[in-house]
């Protein structure tokens, strides 16, 4: 028989081609896989330079948060001992004059952007008790927090009476707002959010022409120079400190 005892011509071609192809193919794949994994390892050890920046969650920061506004806010919240459960709450008018270093008009202008955000709580003469309208306005404003970190209460008194008496009265008015928030919200961390400022009757009185147009707790009632200053302005403030 032709070729007995030794392979016939071409009989071993198939196995040889198969083995060679298999060896080349698996060899190439192993080298590629090794290279791909090693390359990933090298990238892993190299800090990513073109990594897209991710925004960081934070409280809101509105356009009205000018350096001057923040100065007032920071002083009210921190320097005057308002936050973190410290015993003294509130700034005296004298403090405001010192730290704000701005005119009454400019001071009030700082709050102009808060017209829609805040509300003016009106009081009876010589009183600090909140009526139902005042309570509702405070609760509504408190509920509308959005991204704000701080809630600011700026209390005043009309020029009727002595400055000392008015200072004490505006202090009580600011506290009445604070206490109502604390009671109605039931939130444990109100102290850390609310900043109180009482101005008495000496500094930054509100101009009725402008501020009687703002949302107040006694809509439809007479609003004049005395009425608008027997008040506390309350608003969330969308500023970061």
């Amino acid at each position, binding site marked *: 028989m*032709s070729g007995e005892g030794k392979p*016939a011509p071409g009989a071993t071609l198939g196995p040889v*081609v198969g083995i060679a192809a*298999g060896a080349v*193919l698996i060899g190439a*794949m*192993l080298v*590629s*896989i090794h290279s791909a994994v090693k390359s*990933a390892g090298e990238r892993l050890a190299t800090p990513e330079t073109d990594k897209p920046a991710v925004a960081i969650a934070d409280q809101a920061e509105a356009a009205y948060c000018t350096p001057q506004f923040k100065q007032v806010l920071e002083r009210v919240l921190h320097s005057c001992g308002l936050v973190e459960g410290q015993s003294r709450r509130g700034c005296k008018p004298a403090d405001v004059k010192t730290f704000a270093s701005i005119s009454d008009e400019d001071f009030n202008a700082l709050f102009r952007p808060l017209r829609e955000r805040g509300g003016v709580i009106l009081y009876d003469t010589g009183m600090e008790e909140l009526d139902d309208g005042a309570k509702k306005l405070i609760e509504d404003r408190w509920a509308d927090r959005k991204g704000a970190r701080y809630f600011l209460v700026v209390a005043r008194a009309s020029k009727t009476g002595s400055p000392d008496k008015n200072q004490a009265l505006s202090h009580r008015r600011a506290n009445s707002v604070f206490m109502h928030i604390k009671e109605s919200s039931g939130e444990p961390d109100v102290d850390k959010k609310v900043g109180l400022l009482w101005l008495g009757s000496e500094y930054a009185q509100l101009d009725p022409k402008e501020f009687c147009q703002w949302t107040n707790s006694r809509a439809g009632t007479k609003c004049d120079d005395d009425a608008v200053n027997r008040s506390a302005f309350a608003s969330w403030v969308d500023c970061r400190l």
Partner: protein
Amino acid sequence: MTRISSLVALVASLLGLLFASYSTFDYAKHLDRRLHDIHCSIIPGAPVTDSADACRAAMYSPYSALMKEKFWGGVPISLFAVGAFCFFVAFSLYLVVSGDRAPRKAVQFFALATLAPVGASLLMFFISLTKLGTFCLICVGIYISSTLLGVSALLGYLGLRGEIRASGGKVGSPYARPDTGGGPGLRPDVGWTHPPAWLVALALFTLAPAVVYASAMPDHRPYLGNCGSLKVQEEAANALIKMSTPRSTMPTTLFEDPMCPTCKAFHERLLAEDVFDKLKVQLSLFPLDSECNWMLTDPLHPGACIVAKAVICGGSQARQVLEWAYENQEVLTKAGKQGKEQLRAVIQQKWGPATLNCMDEKQTAQTLNRHLHFAADNGIPVSTPQMYFNGKRFCDEDTDIGLRYTLGQIAPEVLK
């Protein structure tokens, strides 16, 4: 086996190798812990498309790799396919070149061996159908290649049986030439020495890529858990949603958006890995919707604030509401884009008017606001999902293919 069926088997093997290689190299790219596009098309070299989502879902699933606890990302199963298809390419080439001189046992072995890729493809197809609910096109390419390979090998085997009948069961010498060694169709007999060798070769080919991959893997341990921590671990008014089971042990804070597809996939992975029930979860809802979230200028997931309120209103059933939202995310997303009322109608249909009333309450809006402020107080990245174990952040890179490995390193108890 006819030369044609061998040729078909060769083409099928090459296609299978191509798809398995795509899958493998896509997987290997992710070992650098960065984001990469995924090739996901049955047309080799086609650009990245939306269908990549299905491939990503398959890649991130627990079924994509083995030994995920031992290696970051595990050893992708596509590596075994790469090795096996290399073998089938070589073997089918051997059959093509040998033609009717190929030993009968080679044809029989080939037919038998192709049952392995066919069986594996059937298994993965079943998993895709029942567990993933989606089909990755690259995987489909592998299923088709395997099927084609199996069918061609079967046809070759059936052709061989015809030859045996025609030759009356005679076999030729291993060295005989068909034209002189007994006539056409008389194939050489290689005895029983070759099949075990082929089997060993198949095993070696199948395992070799996995061994090389595992041996070249970088050490990911230095990178785990370096992604920050919570400044404030508890929400002052206890507004966050608590979820736990009798098996829960690990204090975990999750930031999730019920309308976020990545959150849905992550939640499903935690469930599939049997991890979620072992977590003592406090969930801070973080809807990426500018309607309630001031950190965004535009709604990334319209309606997410509304669905988040529904989850809050779920109370003790919050987990069920969240999982319902994930299961019905496509419907909710569509409704959310149509408008608030459409979305509310979908929620009402499932959870009733009481939930809707609760969602409208001022208190619910305030609770959701507290969730968002919790995120702001902690200065977390504006992205979802995020997971913190005992206040320590799980890196985003470790929430998908590296999840099981990272859990094994950071909190092995949740894998027990």
